């Protein structure tokens, strides 16, 4: 996972300030209901750029879903067309035009990031092409009034409350200490976590530090003096690892939790395995680890066969996004408009979560998934409603 992480940080940074868009419509060769034997579905995201590490897993998931579907010899086959936007809004715009006018895709998986999604949302709306993003998490995307835009991942605004509510349930804390560095994503997450704690009647103290600081002794002193039951850090793994190490060195033993920005093995290497043990991480993403069971295990094994690596971030969401369109096409819908109509009623058990859309394109199920560091490795505990932390 480690190579993916720098990209993840960059992508999150980009995502937090930007917004996502949707797909192209216009039926690929579906003129007037003749016998259609194949349709094109696009996948758009940063496939070769600096954040490609978080787009390639959902791409692999989508490829896998469509290969599985085509292998069943359906009446209408699906051809996946990949568009490498490099995560850049200006490139995404050009690629959507190409996808709609030249390639005549009927639906789009992606765009992967919020910025490019925001840039092409209007265009997809006009072209009547439905889109489902596996990974764009900016809350603002759902507020554009787009009817062709969807996503299968909880947004950033769900994450803070998700973490706080989970900790309240799991640890019944009387006092929480909420920390962050000074980056936009970090501050935003910390603020929503602190608010949710306050609403739940938990006393909250806070501190912030510069993202470039290396000595957190004053923060550690504040935490020790407050003696909280839980500590939540909003921020990325580089700062999170250093902070966690210095907190534990300073004799702070309270439960440490953080969000998707810190969900990386580098958190463990940065903090040291001993200090990182039992740290709790939350993410809107569902990343199966090797020890999962049931449908996730099947996904894990098939993904490993298909992509030759373990599933990484947004792989399950990529698979589910592709499955949405597969189900629509299976039901006989081969134009953008018809597929979009079908999405209003779609409801099935996805790999990452049950998939059903609200009218604004948000997923009905906005589950946050909980991970915990066990023996130096990040382990998936499950959706926040069901997860039980140990230690």
């Amino acid at each position, binding site marked *: 996972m480690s190579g993916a992480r*720098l990209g993840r940080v960059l992508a999150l940074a980009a995502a937090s300030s930007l917004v996502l868009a949707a797909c192209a419509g216009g039926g690929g060769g579906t003129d007037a209901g003749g016998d259609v034997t194949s349709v094109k579905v696009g996948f758009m995201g940063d496939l070769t750029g600096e954040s490609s590490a978080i787009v390639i897993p959902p791409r692999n998931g989508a490829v896998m879903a469509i290969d599985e579907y085509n292998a069943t010899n359906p009446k209408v086959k699906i051809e996946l067309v990949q568009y490498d936007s490099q995560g850049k809004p200006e490139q995404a715009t050009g690629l959507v035009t190409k996808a709609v006018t030249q390639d005549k895709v009927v639906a789009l998986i992606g765009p992967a990031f919020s910025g490019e999604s925001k840039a092409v949302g209007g265009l997809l709306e006009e072209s009547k092409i439905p889109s489902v993003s596996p990974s764009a998490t900016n809350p603002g995307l759902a507020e554009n009034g787009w009817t062709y835009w969807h996503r299968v991942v909880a947004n950033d605004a769900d994450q803070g409350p998700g973490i706080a509510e989970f900790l309240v349930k799991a640890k019944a804390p009387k006092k929480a200490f909420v920390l962050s560095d000074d980056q936009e994503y970090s501050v935003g997450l910390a603020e929503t976590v602190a608010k949710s704690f306050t609403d739940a009647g938990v006393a909250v103290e806070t*501190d*912030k*530090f510069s993202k470039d600081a*290396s000595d957190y002794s*004053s923060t550690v002193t*504040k935490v020790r003096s407050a003696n909280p039951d839980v500590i939540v850090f909003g921020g990325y793994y580089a700062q999170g*690892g*250093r902070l966690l190490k210095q907190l534990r060195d300073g004799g702070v033993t309270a439960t440490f939790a953080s969000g998707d920005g810190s969900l990386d093995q580098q958190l463990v290497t940065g903090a040291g395995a001993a200090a990182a043990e039992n740290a709790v991480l939350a993410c809107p993403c569902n990343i199966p680890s090797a020890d999962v069971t049931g449908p996730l295990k099947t996904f894990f094994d098939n993904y490993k066969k298909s992509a030759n690596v373990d599933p990484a971030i947004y792989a399950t969401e990529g698979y589910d996004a592709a499955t949405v369109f597969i189900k629509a096409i299976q039901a006989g819908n081969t134009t953008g408009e018809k597929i979009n109509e079908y999405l209003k009623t779609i409801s099935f058990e996805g790999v990452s979560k049950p998939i059903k859309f609200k009218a604004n394109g948000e997923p009905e199920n906005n589950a946050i998934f909980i991970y915990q560091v066990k023996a130096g490795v990040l382990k998936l505990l499950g959706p926040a409603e069901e997860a039980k932390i140990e230690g």
Partner: protein
Amino acid sequence: MLDDFLNQFLPSTVGGLVFGSIYALVALGYTMVYGVLRLINFAHSEIFMIGTFTSLVVITAIAPASPLTGIALFGVMLLIIVLSAAVSGGAAILLELVAYRPLRRKGATRLTALISAIGASLFLQELFALVIIPWLTGKPGRNQQSSPRLVDRDTVFSIGNADVRTDHIIVVVAAVIMMIALDRLVNRTKIGRGIRATAQDPEAAVLMGVSIDNIVRVTFLLGGAMAGVAGALYLMEFENTVYNVGFVLGIKAFTAAVLGGIGNLRGALLGGIVLGLIENWGAIFLGSEWKDVIAFTVLVVVLMFRPTGILGESLQKARA
């Protein structure tokens, strides 16, 4: 508020002294080069970074299975300090040779040297990120690199509610020893007299038989070695480093040098410690994100009343 202050004052003081010691060691390099050449050596922060990576490589090679104690700890600490000082000192000499000496030979202005310094700083950062760090560690060059634990975080004694740990003591004691040694060297030896003479009046120093090139080389060596020691102590304390670890720390250390009186060795020590303490004390009231604001506000206020810093410039005025 007062409660917070009373609860946090002593632990903050300990933290401030520890980080202040590292500021002070790095500040010495800025202050010595400025004293002798009137040059702000912006690439000095990269000399510090090189020190942290030297220590990282040595500690990783030794790879202690568990934290060390006693004589083994002393030996390994000595080893990483000496090696980091040597590598950083060597790198500083090389830096002077490549980035500054040709300009000095041609009688370039101080502004040209300053641009060369900024260029060298960026060059070294990128060289490490793109080539040297991947080669040394086998990991992406811009990732944070972590080292195994060398020293246990045992509390040796407590003052009130402040725990003083083994690692704190090592940082402060090692820094103080290095600074006393440097102070003696500059004030009591022949080479030190050469440094002071050059700082005071380069032309007269040449007339008196001082070799300027030698003195400049020794100045960079000593400043670089101090940054190397700081790098070793930093790595032991924080157990991680990254290609741009010196950037913010270097600016703070430079601030410490100006605060104490640039060109003044004891001023660098005082400036470093004062900066470390004020940052941490200020953070008690305002929050840790205000540390930088506090540090620079103090700098501006001090310079308004004492433009030459707390102790003033004295490498030049020192009696030979």
